[in-house]
């Protein structure tokens, strides 16, 4: 089979798995059967992806772009339809990410079997995981913005279902809703960006040229002859479109200021966190930005880089003071995503994707380890209660240690031997040097901040990860009861951890291979930020900053020194006036949740109540008022009618009665009187009727 068919099959398998499990459910088989069935489906996906990877890499490497008609938008003059299209696009990045996503998803599926043991809705959980995997693969395969958007939303809804999996509890309820709504804020930008490109590119949403047309890139660069990197002010729409699409990425990749949903998403079961924070969801935003990379104008680049920089600094600082192990990891993810986004803004398409891949493995592993600890600790997540778990859980501790080193960017100085995080992060820092230089060349000297920020935060990263490791696994047990009951997890849980940890070790070795593979697909637009150029600077810089400074060792040493005896030293530092306030501020996540509660949530609620009341009392009030006026008018007229019109009638009736009572005296059998009355009556009647009759004769009868 061709790679594109294999990848379509790989995408379809989890969808089929989801449909089968949801439709047949518990009536047909027990949770054990279904769990392994879903592992089989995603495993099949993995096999397809790996074959596709090998085939594609062995082949010509020519990208495959296929577009199928899906949504008709109109009719051409010759009667044929015009369509919004979806379809697979396969290049080296696609096959690489398919391999990454399916490997991680398979391992998380296996891990879930152990972790979700005994949960009454385990089957459903496995089905949602299938849906999640399907959605993510759909994004990776997407050839058009429309397809990206479709699966974008499906990722959103599957994360909603997974984060809110334990919906009996209030926390998950709120977290899943928050995740979806905050993502939709980004999606609004996505929709607007898509709309602008739809209009500019003549109704074409396919990114790269396919048989049906030149695609968005082709249209903009060839037909409209715009070079996004030199786009002038009259091409502001391109900047707007780029930022709009990137807003979607900000939602999914939890970039500032849409970051608050990600830490809350910890309310979901830990396997969900491990997949959300690595291969799916947050990866989607970075992936989208990489896919639309050629469209980004310098202004958009600057926007992207700034957002990334803010996120990476902010999150790393917050991570330093959290005591919930999953929260630390969550903020660490945010920070690392900030690195990727910064790299994209700085023009290093290559290293952003490379860091995405390396980060996916070690972060997934870290979350699984954390999940194992939480599982062993009876769902206690506070690191203040941990300590000394190394002996109880050696495998988990070893995996956690390896991944901590990987995320810290550990390497052996003056050699090329290092763990995976080192390669990708240094590449990013190298790219920011170039970017800072480029900005400075345009008179923006402060551009250097794009380089100093990530460099300093690289030290901070090593520090807070060491802190987490030390507090959890080393030192004396701080909760005796918890420690006594802790135990190593079963194989379905430690096996995926070990596999992931080994990936975290060796995937960097294929640095040149992987790096070269990705950068070949980097668009020509990125030439000023040429990957080769990055590479050269990368090594130059490796020596300059991190290796030379033994940065990771310093931070790790500091982490050990501070936390090996628990929080005793740290809490003293945190009590120092001045620091205490900062600590409090960081501990409360810089107050964003409170701020958003006040601004967005309360404003939204207030607005909805105001508009609801407005609707009820003003708009509907006007309707009811009109009805009231109509009714009152009716009463008025009715009253008038009763009082006066009918009153006259009644009055005459009464008069007649009275007259009758007067006249009844006359009814004494006096015949002559009767005749008189009759005569008078007839005469009166005639007297009234005659003018009418004359009128009719004179003027003619009224016609109709």
């Amino acid at each position: 089979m061709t790679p594109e068919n294999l990848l379509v099959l790989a995408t379809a398998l989890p969808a089929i798995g989801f449909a089968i499990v949801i439709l047949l459910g518990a009536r047909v088989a027990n949770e054990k059967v279904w769990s392994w069935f879903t592992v089989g489906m995603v495993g099949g996906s993995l096999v397809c992806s790996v074959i596709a990877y090998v085939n594609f890499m062995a082949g010509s490497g020519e990208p495959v772009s296929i577009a199928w008609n899906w949504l008709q938008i109109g009719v051409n003059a010759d009667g044929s339809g015009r369509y919004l299209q979806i379809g697979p696009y396969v290049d080296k990045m696609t096959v690489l990410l398919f391999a990454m996503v399916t490997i991680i998803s398979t391992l998380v599926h296996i891990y879930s079997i152990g972790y979700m043991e005994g949960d009454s809705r385990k089957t459903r959980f496995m089905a949602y995981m299938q849906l999640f995997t399907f959605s993510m693969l759909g994004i990776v395969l997407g050839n058009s913005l429309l397809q990206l958007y479709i699966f974008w939303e499906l990722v959103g809804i599957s994360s909603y279902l997974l984060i809110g999996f334990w919906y009996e509890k209030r926390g998950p309820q709120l977290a899943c809703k928050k995740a979806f709504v905050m993502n939709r804020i980004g999606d609004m930008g996505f929709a607007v960006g898509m709309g602008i490109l739809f209009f500019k590119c003549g109704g074409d949403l396919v990114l790269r040229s396919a048989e049906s047309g030149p695609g968005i890139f082709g249209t903009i660069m060839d037909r409209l002859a715009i070079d996004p990197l030199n786009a002038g002010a009259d091409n502001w729409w391109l900047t707007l479109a780029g930022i709009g699409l990137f807003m979607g990425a900000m939602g999914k990749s939890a970039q500032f200021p849409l970051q608050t949903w990600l830490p809350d998403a910890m309310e979901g079961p830990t396997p969900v966190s491990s997949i959300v924070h690595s291969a799916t969801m947050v990866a989607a935003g970075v992936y989208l930005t990489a896919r639309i990379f050629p469209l980004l104008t310098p202004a958009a680049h600057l926007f992207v880089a700034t957002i990334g920089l803010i996120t990476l600094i902010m999150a790393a600082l917050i991570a330093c003071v959290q005591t919930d192990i999953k929260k630390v990891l969550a903020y660490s993810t945010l920070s690392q995503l900030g690195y990727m986004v910064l790299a994209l803004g700085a023009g290093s398409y290559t290293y952003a994707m490379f860091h995405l891949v390396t980060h996916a493995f070690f972060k997934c592993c870290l979350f699984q380890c954390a999940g194992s600890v939480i599982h062993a600790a009876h769902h206690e997540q506070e690191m203040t209660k941990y300590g000394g778990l190394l002996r109880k859980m050696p495998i988990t501790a070893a995996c956690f240690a390896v991944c901590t080193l990987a995320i810290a960017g550990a390497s052996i100085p003056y050699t090329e031997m290092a763990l995976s995080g080192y390669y990708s992060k240094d590449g990013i820092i190298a790219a920011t040097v170039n970017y800072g230089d480029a900005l400075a060349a345009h008179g923006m000297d402060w551009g250097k901040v794009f380089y100093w920020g990530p460099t300093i935060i690289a030290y901070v990263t090593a520090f807070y990860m060491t802190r987490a490791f030390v507090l959890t696994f080393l030192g004396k047990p701080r909760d005796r009861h918890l420690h006594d009951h802790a135990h190593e997890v079963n194989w379905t849980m430690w096996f995926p951890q070990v596999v992931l940890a080994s990936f975290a070790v060796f995937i960097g070795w294929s640095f040149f291979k992987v790096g070269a593979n990705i950068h070949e697909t980097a668009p020509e637009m990125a030439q000023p930020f040429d990957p080769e150029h990055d590479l050269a600077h990368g090594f130059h810089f490796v020596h300059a900053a991190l290796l030379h400074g033994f940065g990771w060792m310093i931070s790790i040493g500091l982490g050990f020194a501070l936390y090996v005896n628990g929080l005793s030293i740290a809490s003293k530092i945190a009590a120092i006036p001045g620091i205490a306030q900062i600590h409090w501020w960081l501990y409360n996540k810089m107050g964003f949740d409170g701020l958003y509660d006040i601004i967005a949530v309360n404003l939204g609620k207030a607005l909805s109540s105001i508009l609801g009341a407005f609707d009820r009392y003003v708009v509907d009030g006007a309707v009811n008022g009109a009805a009231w006026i109509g009714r009152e008018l009716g009463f008025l007229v009715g009253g008038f009618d009763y009082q006066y019109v009918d009153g006259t009638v009644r009055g005459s009736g009464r008069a007649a009665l009275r007259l009758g009572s007067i006249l009844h005296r006359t009814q004494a059998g006096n015949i002559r009187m009767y005749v008189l009355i009759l005569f008078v009556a007839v005469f009166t009647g005639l007297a009234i009727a005659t003018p009418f009759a004359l009128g009719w004769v004179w003027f003619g009868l009224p016609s109709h």
Partner: protein
Amino acid sequence: MNELFVNLIIFLPLLGAVGCLLPRDNPALSRMIAMVTAVVVLLINVALAWSFYGEAGGTSYLPSGGESVVRYVTDLVWIESVNIHYLVGVDGLSMPLLLLTSILNVLIIAAGWNVEKHTKAFMSLYLVLMFGMYGVFLALDFFLFYVFFEVSLLPMYFLIGIWGGPRKEYAAIKFFIYTLVGSICLLMVMLGFYFLVPDVATGAAAAGGKPSFNMIALAADEGVQQAFNHGGQFWTYAKWFFILLFISFAIKVPAVPFHTWLPDAHVEAPTPISMILAGVLLKMGGYALMRISYPIFPDAAKWAWFGVAIVGVVSIVYGAFCAMAQTDWKKLVAYSSVSHMGYVILGLAVLTEAGRNGAYFQMIGHGISSAMMFFLVGVVYERAHHRDLNRFGGLWNTMPAYTGLAAVGFFAGLGLPLLCGFPGEVLSLMGTFGAIEWIENAPSWVPFSGAGSSATVITLGVFAASGVILTAGYILWMFQRVYMGPARPEYTYSGRDMVNGREYFVMAVLALFAIILGVWPAVVLDMISNTFNAIYAPFSSLASAAGF
């Protein structure tokens, strides 16, 4: 044969309505007659759609002999002195709505299977309503259309007023009078047609020849357009008529600010009637805009684009905010209809092909999703006897299978891709952005034409797109309050109270259609595009100017 089918679709329900009344003291038989009628009409519709879909070209029909996409036409003189015809036929605009109506009719009679109060009258009135609905979608003569438009009104009045909730009388009379105001606007336009329209066949002025109410002919005829563009210098007849028609149909859609009859009508109406009200009756407004307002008054439509688009965007955003404010579950769903139908108005307003396709698809998609949402509410209401969102909770645990189907229904309402709510929304939105091109190049009497158009249109697009956030907000908040949380004993049902097979049938069929339409939107779009292309010819120059 197909011509016969078209007439059968209209008159079989009427026959059924009489039939329902005949059996004495046997409500079950009445029910059965109604169901059989609905199923037969559904089958006829499917047969009709089958041949409609299969035939490439349309039967030529126009008095002047021109080509048209209308097929299976029956044309009989009804009132000769004023040239009113019984003119019915099918084109791409009517076919998908006919299918939607016929599918919903079967499901709604199934949903109303447990109506015990005056079953005979209920079913009979429902079939009269059916007669009116099919008539509206098939009539091609303006007067005939008006008649069916009114016919559908009266049964609805009784269906709400007799079988409704506590404030049923208020809701029924409000619905009736409000819609009647719209009908008066329609009547005024009809009188205008009578006096202004020249004889289409001979081209003679109205005074000498016979005026025409043939909507297809009116749209295509040059002389008619000229006649309408007379009147005041600025306030041409066409603009007056367009506005009057818009008010009339905006009430039916309903668009803000003409929408307040809807929440009351929905809240008081029994479940099946809410379903048909949201599922089909609102679509009569959108359909009428597409069939009458836009093709017959193209210039006025261009002139009015901004005003109409504002109505659409305000409906989307305002409806969503109002939905968020509700604590009555059914009212929330009712306001969501206002919000969702805003996309129909917006898609039409911007005069792009994508927008029109989106508007039409949104009507079909919303027909399925809103009917489903109302049924989902009804299922719970029948058991819990209240609809207060703040008192629910934990239904996911006590009614898992039902909640699974509810997720499909509500997520379709939320506009989730691969469900029926998505294609319409995204096409309307894309169409809105696509409008920049023609507005930029439009003559100066078009509002916001010229260079500044892009900023205006993008702003509209941003507001419309913000609807996706608000929709997610109110749907998910509702979902949280009703379905999530720990299981509660008061919402735990067993034995006869469990969701029964009939209810599962209705929900499952609707869910199935929600998925089919979402995954394969071509099933609707293929039918409509040729028709749009033909009857929106006055706008096609806009599209070609835009280069797509």
